[in-house]
């Protein structure tokens, strides 16, 4: 990077995108209103599990304003929705992939399973008409818990998945682990439920599908984190359309957190129907539909064991997890509790032997897929709860047991497939302890005790793997997609730069961060850089945003494209300056002949490229527009320590977070303000999981009991305090930015830190185990039970 004032890397540049969001000029999918558009409404199953004997749509079709009514039977030639990751089980067999119909036919498998689509002139008319559809249901028993689903005699959800089992998969050396446990001085065991969560981006899912007779093409506006993947899956796998005939636009998207990665049934049915009705169709989910039919997260039941030597050194870890898939396999469901979970069980520690076995079960619930962190919060929760419990049982301080086991030499090959390139775990632990004022904790605890309150301190030393890669290795592990990213840098004749990125921002601030990267590299003002994302009609095939990959993978693709721009610029400048190409240096926006003051500004070179009057046309194409695809050679490994201090009122069971401190290592940072914001948001989602949020289905009826914001406790401003967050830096070794990713860290570290604090506080009262969320009722009940 150059050193001029135009180099803003590392500065908290205020966001370019904010003006439009703050003035109501953002354009979200529901703001798109093509002329003459219609409205869709999806009729969803009120039963968790039912055979549909008959559907009569005659009255609905005759209702006022109705344009069309479609059921699954009408969608001839339409395939089911595909799953993007093939897991091969311990038996050598591929996972079970039962059909995932766009509109359910013959059978509905969860409350919210859509089976009919009404298209009408207004939303109210569509909804009113849907009530006129006569459905003859034969309700059958349902099962919503993944452990129950695998038991003999459980209701069978799919014919093609006997015993409701999708797969059993394993990673690690079981024999070595068993041998280590046999000689362990101490074994810590925990049974852990990782609670099911509902993502709840504040913008509900929405879509606007249009068909044009002029070119036999379709345009889909949709709330998506990855429009190219959406288009590929929809056209090639489901609808059988040429990719060239479908343009997918994900405009401003109001939060994703994973839930908008997937190809969903609604927009697929709408694209199909838009040609039939020959009018645009719009649908925006009501919040109750979001609760029912967005892909949920987590939902693991785990038995975990840690073997230790007499000094508290970890010898081995053994983990058995049952993971819910829900009623159908969502786009990346299968890889979350496997590839993105078991591989993270080494954490920050030198545990030499780890074995993890995962059984995935179908349940009569909404599909489960990636939600912020996706497998990695579940892994961190297992590791850090085990470490906390082991330290407590063995009388070792929480920081000390972690220090005794930290990895300190890099690169480090874990026993669960990952190769950590770099890290500095002591530094983050030390700094987190400093800002959390751990030294003063004993006094604060004593003071709280005088007031009858229970104080606790909890640590989570987490690791995550971001920028899932490389594609060829992922392919051998079952990935059905590439994992690279694309960046195109189009220099305009007057020197302004338009950057097309396959990454997608739905709150992350790419327009600012990426502009900082580009402007600093080219030595031009940030205002001269425009970032374009989210439109398959404008951008080369990219993979979108998930797994904290945008800067490390998408940013690197842009850097690679910039390198090509600079390389070509040097050739042009050499010609203009009548110097050898090898003598041209590029710095601070100028191409200079080394050792001279002869130079050409970046803008002059750009103009020469597009007005090639004085130009080496015999050797060089005109224009300055370069594209790069970047496929990472490894994951990146952000890590850090989060420390939470809680105070519990034993009379009410209410847990108050009195302090939350985080020290994270995200590698090099472009915009500290944006990074801090990502941590704040992630931490509150983590606190939400640990303290407030839980998706509950009735075990008998399969009804969703937490179907609104009155029942599902999304964190509110007064549920959380302000946090102290800081960073340490060990740059990633294998991308030119040295960046690792920061989007999910908060949601990964916070649940374990908070629950360890709760356990620390409650241990004096004899409470030994509590699952998330630590609601007042649960905490109070546990305290009462411990008294008796």
């Amino acid at each position, binding site marked *: 990077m150059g050193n001029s004032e135009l180099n803003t890397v590392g500065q908290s540049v205020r*966001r370019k995108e904010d003006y439009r969001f*703050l003035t109501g000029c953002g354009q979200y999918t529901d703001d798109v209103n093509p002329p003459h558009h219609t409205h869709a409404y999806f009729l969803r199953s009120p039963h968790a599990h039912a055979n549909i004997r008959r559907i009569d749509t005659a009255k609905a079709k005759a209702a006022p304003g109705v344009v069309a009514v479609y059921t699954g039977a009408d969608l001839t030639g339409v395939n089911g929705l595909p799953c993007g990751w093939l897991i091969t089980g311990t038996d050598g067999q591929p996972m079970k992939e039962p059909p995932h119909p766009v509109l359910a036919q013959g059978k509905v498998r969860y409350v919210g399973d859509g089976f009919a689509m009404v298209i009408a002139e207004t939303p109210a008319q569509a909804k009113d008409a849907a009530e006129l559809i006569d459905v003859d249901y034969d309700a059958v028993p349902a099962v919503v818990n993944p452990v129950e689903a695998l038991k003999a005699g459980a209701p069978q959800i799919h014919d093609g998945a006997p015993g409701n089992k999708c797969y059993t998969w394993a990673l690690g050396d079981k024999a070595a682990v068993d041998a280590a446990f046999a000689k362990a001085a101490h074994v810590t065991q925990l049974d852990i439920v990782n609670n099911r969560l509902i993502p709840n*981006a504040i913008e509900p899912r929405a879509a606007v599908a249009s068909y044009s007779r002029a070119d036999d093409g379709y345009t889909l506006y949709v709330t998506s984190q990855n429009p190219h993947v959406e288009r590929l899956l929809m056209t090639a796998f489901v609808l059988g359309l040429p990719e060239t005939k479908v343009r997918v636009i994900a405009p401003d998207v109001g939060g994703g957190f994973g839930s908008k990665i997937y190809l969903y049934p609604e927009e697929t049915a709408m694209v199909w129907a838009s040609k039939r009705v020959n009018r645009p169709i719009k649908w925006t989910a009501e919040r109750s539909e979001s609760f029912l039919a967005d892909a949920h997260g987590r939902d693991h039941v785990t038995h975990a064991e840690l073997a230790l030597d007499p000094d508290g050194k970890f010898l081995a870890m053994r983990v058995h997890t049952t993971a819910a898939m829900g009623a159908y396999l969502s786009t990346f469901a299968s890889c979350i509790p496997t590839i993105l979970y078991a591989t993270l069980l080494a954490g920050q520690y030198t545990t030499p032997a780890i074995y993890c076995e995962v059984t995935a079960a179908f349940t009569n619930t909404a599909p489960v897929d990636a939600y912020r962190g996706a497998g990695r919060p579940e892994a961190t929760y297992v590791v850090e709860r085990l470490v906390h419990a082991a330290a407590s049982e063995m009388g070792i301080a929480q920081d000390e047991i972690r220090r005794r086991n930290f990895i300190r030499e890099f690169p480090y090959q874990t026993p669960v497939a990952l190769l950590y390139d770099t890290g500095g775990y002591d530094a983050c632990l030390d700094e987190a302890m400093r800002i959390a004022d751990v030294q003063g904790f004993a006094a604060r605890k004593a003071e709280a005790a005088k007031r009858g309150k229970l104080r606790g301190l909890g640590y989570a030393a987490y690791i995550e793997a971001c920028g899932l890669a490389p594609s060829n290795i992922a392919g051998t592990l079952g990935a059905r997609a590439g994992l690279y990213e694309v960046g195109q840098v189009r220099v305009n004749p007057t020197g302004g730069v338009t950057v097309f990125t396959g990454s997608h921002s739905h709150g992350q601030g790419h327009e600012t961060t990426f502009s900082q990267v580009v402007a600093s590299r080219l030595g031009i003002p940030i205002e001269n850089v425009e970032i374009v994302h989210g439109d398959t009609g404008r951008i080369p095939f990219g993979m979108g945003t998930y797994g904290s990959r945008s800067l490390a993978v998408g940013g690197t693709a842009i850097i690679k494209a910039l390198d090509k721009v600079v390389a070509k610029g040097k050739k042009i400048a050499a010609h203009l300056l009548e110097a050898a190409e090898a003598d041209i240096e590029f710095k601070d926006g100028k191409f200079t002949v080394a050792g001279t003051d002869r130079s050409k500004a970046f803008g002059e070179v750009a103009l020469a490229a597009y007005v090639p009057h004085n130009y080496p046309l015999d050797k060089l194409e005109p224009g300055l527009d370069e594209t790069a695809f970047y496929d990472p050679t490894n994951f990146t490994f952000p890590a850090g320590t989060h420390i939470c201090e809680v105070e519990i009122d034993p009379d009410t069971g209410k847990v108050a977070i009195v302090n939350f401190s985080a020290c994270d290592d995200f590698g090099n940072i472009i915009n500290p*303000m944006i990074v801090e914001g990502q941590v704040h948001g992630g931490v509150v989602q983590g606190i939400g999981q640990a303290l407030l949020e839980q998706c509950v289905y009735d075990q008998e009826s399969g009804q969703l009991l937490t179907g609104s914001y009155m029942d599902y406790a999304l964190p509110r401003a007064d549920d959380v305090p302000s946090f102290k967050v800081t960073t340490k830096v060990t740059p990633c070794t294998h991308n030119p930015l040295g960046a690792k990713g920061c989007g999910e860290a908060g949601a990964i570290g916070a649940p374990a830190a908070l629950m360890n604090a709760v356990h620390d506080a409650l241990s004096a009262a004899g409470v030994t185990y509590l699952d998330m969320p630590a609601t007042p009722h649960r905490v109070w009940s546990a305290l009462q039970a411990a008294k008796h």
Partner: protein
Amino acid sequence: MSVSLSLTVNDEAVNAQVDARTLLVDFIRNNLALTGTHVGCDTGQCGACTVLVDGNAVKACTILAVQANGSKITTIEGLAKNGELHPMQAAFKDCHGLQCGFCTPGMVLSAIDLVQRHPDADEATIRAELEGNLCRCTGYQNIVKAIAQGAAAMRG
């Protein structure tokens, strides 16, 4: 049943005929094409649809358009004057009090109402007053900071 409405929106007189069951938020979004007012939950809980009705923050999904007849309404589009952000908008930008931007219009308008009632609000008051506005991105910390800064700027 159609009813006639006469009201002021962002300092402009508006006269319209609407279906009596039209919610204020749908009137603002669909009839007036002011799409900065968002719908996040349609059950009155998320606050993304908050507008000012006669200076008071109101969730526009909780009242009918006809109930706003004769009122003076300010939506997010009406805050900035001549391209210059309102002090609260400017504070949200300066403090990174927004990420995806979807809850932001409601947050900003709630914040203005909050500051009118509590010009010197401390953090606890700001957090308590934000009960009716959900944000899933920011963790609220920078929203709270922005409101304190915006309040100071509004005090002048």
